[in-house]
């Protein structure tokens, strides 16, 4: 036992090596076809999803774990006025919190903001553009009162593919939301009736996200943080969990990719889709 180096020491050695000689590190990746954490190229890390973890303080909550990346989501309800151009639609806001607790790179407020703002924008676009919930369902009185859902995402541990965990936990938290029954009193105020059973928010679509790396004509599914830092070409793809339609595809920077590589990247999302469905079935069996 004393002779074998601990897991931490091995990781340290690899990170040392990859920092000093990134070219050899990447070419080793090509030849060995084995990733730092022992996964094969297309193998994803285990996915675990929990719902209703913060029943005391939120209207809906969830915890998403992708390997060692953990994101906690909580939804709070608010009654507000609808926007002028959509009087019959409720609103969904997203806030992402990255603290130095989850990774030391977030030690400055600037570093936190840079990444959290980009994530906020991405998650919000996915939720709104892909019609994850019918926003008409969030209407109380057309043109006057609508529900505003604030989705707070708190990263607890960052080990790559953070956007995937954010999207998944936001979706699961929304699926966990129950809307209370309300009436509008004579003063035009919305009163919540606590004695009536609340109604569950219905999800119209589940876009299942996956972060993919592309290096030397190889696709790597579900990047860890160490891989994200070394592999410049990354894709973020989300497909619908039922129909397999494309919800979003984001590729920023890196090398150029031919259509056939993009095609197999989209196909790779099927693995995450399977993981998600399995996890959902498990949860349904339990309850």
């Amino acid at each position: 036992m004393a002779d074998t180096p601990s897991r931490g020491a091995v990781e340290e050695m690899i990170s040392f090596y990859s920092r000093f000689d990134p070219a050899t590190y990447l070419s080793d990746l090509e030849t060995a076809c084995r990733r730092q954490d022992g996964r094969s190229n297309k193998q994803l890390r285990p996915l675990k999803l929990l719902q209703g973890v913060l029943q005391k303080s939120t209207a809906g909550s969830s915890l998403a774990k992708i390997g060692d990346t953990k994101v906690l989501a909580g939804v709070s309800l608010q009654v507000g006025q609808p926007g002028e151009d959509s009087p019959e639609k409720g609103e969904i806001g997203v806030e992402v919190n990255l603290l130095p607790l989850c990774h030391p790179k977030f030690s400055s407020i600037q570093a936190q903001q840079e990444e959290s703002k980009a994530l906020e924008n991405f998650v919000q676009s996915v939720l709104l553009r892909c019609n994850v919930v019918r926003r008409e369902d969030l209407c109380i009185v057309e043109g006057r009162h609508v529900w505003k859902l604030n989705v707070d995402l708190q990263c607890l541990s960052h080990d790559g593919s953070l956007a995937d965990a954010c999207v998944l936990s936001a979706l699961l938290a929304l699926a966990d939301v129950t809307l209370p029954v309300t009436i509008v009193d004579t003063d035009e105020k919305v009163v919540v009736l606590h004695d009536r059973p609340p109604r569950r928010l219905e999800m119209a679509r589940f876009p299942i996200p996956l972060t993919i790396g592309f290096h030397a004509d190889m696709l790597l599914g579900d990047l860890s943080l160490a891989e994200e830092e070394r592999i410049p070409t990354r894709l973020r793809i989300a497909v619908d969990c039922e129909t397999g339609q494309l919800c979003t595809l984001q590729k920023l920077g890196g090398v150029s990719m031919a259509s056939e590589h993009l095609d197999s990247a989209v196909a790779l999302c099927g693995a995450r889709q399977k993981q998600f469905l399995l996890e959902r079935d498990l949860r349904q069996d339990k309850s």
Partner: protein
Amino acid sequence: MDGRAYNQLRPVFIDLNTVSHASGSAYLEMEHTKVLVAVYGPKARQDVEFSDEGKLRCDFRYSPFALRARRQTGKEKGGREGGREGGGGGGGGPQRDEERAASRTVSQALEASVQLAKLPKSVVEVFVLVLQTDGGEVGAAISCASLALAEAGIELFGLVASCEVVAFMPSEGKREWRVRVDPSAAEEGGEEGGREGGKEGGVVGLALMPVSGEVTQVWQKGRLDSHGIERALEMAADGARMVHALMRRRLLTYMEQEGGGEGGGEGERRGGGEGMER
């Protein structure tokens, strides 16, 4: 209020090594109060040229969910939590007043337990995140942070365990204190509103290093006479010893599992999941 005996703790769940990139981390749950602590370091100190001793830096934060809930209960209790700075639960940015105060409480409670003389020119950073609060989050943060320090392999004199109690006078006229260990947010007001309406009573928290019997931190809010404080401290010390026993047992099983090979770590994480589910 939830059917516990006066000297009974809420069910405690502890998980270790939950934050992958931290030197050490711990998660502690007392029913609805949930706290996560990550320790980074020891690393080089940037603020001074040289120091004989190490430094403990503590950063205590409420998650946006915890903050929202606190604000709501604050309203219900007639603005007891009044004077909070506005704005949503933006986790980034500067700390709020109460977060800064709690940071100080936690770091003072832990400082005495860390062998700072062995860490010259270094700083150990302790990040506390309160995920959900139902009373007693500062005490939970201290116990949890002590576990995280231990898991990070930082040399300690001993584990610090902490417990909060509420002291109140149940009946009018008779000056007789009653003390309840580990109150939830609803119980912090004392039983049957014992503390409300200007009556005497208060919450007392105590951090104790049971190995040496040293008390490392005491804090109090509310009005208590000397007799009441005495009773409260006694009960809090008992509570802290109970928490310490749980912490110690968890740490030992964790060490055994880690020593038993790679499989151990995976088991821990699964354990964490079940903890959150409850």
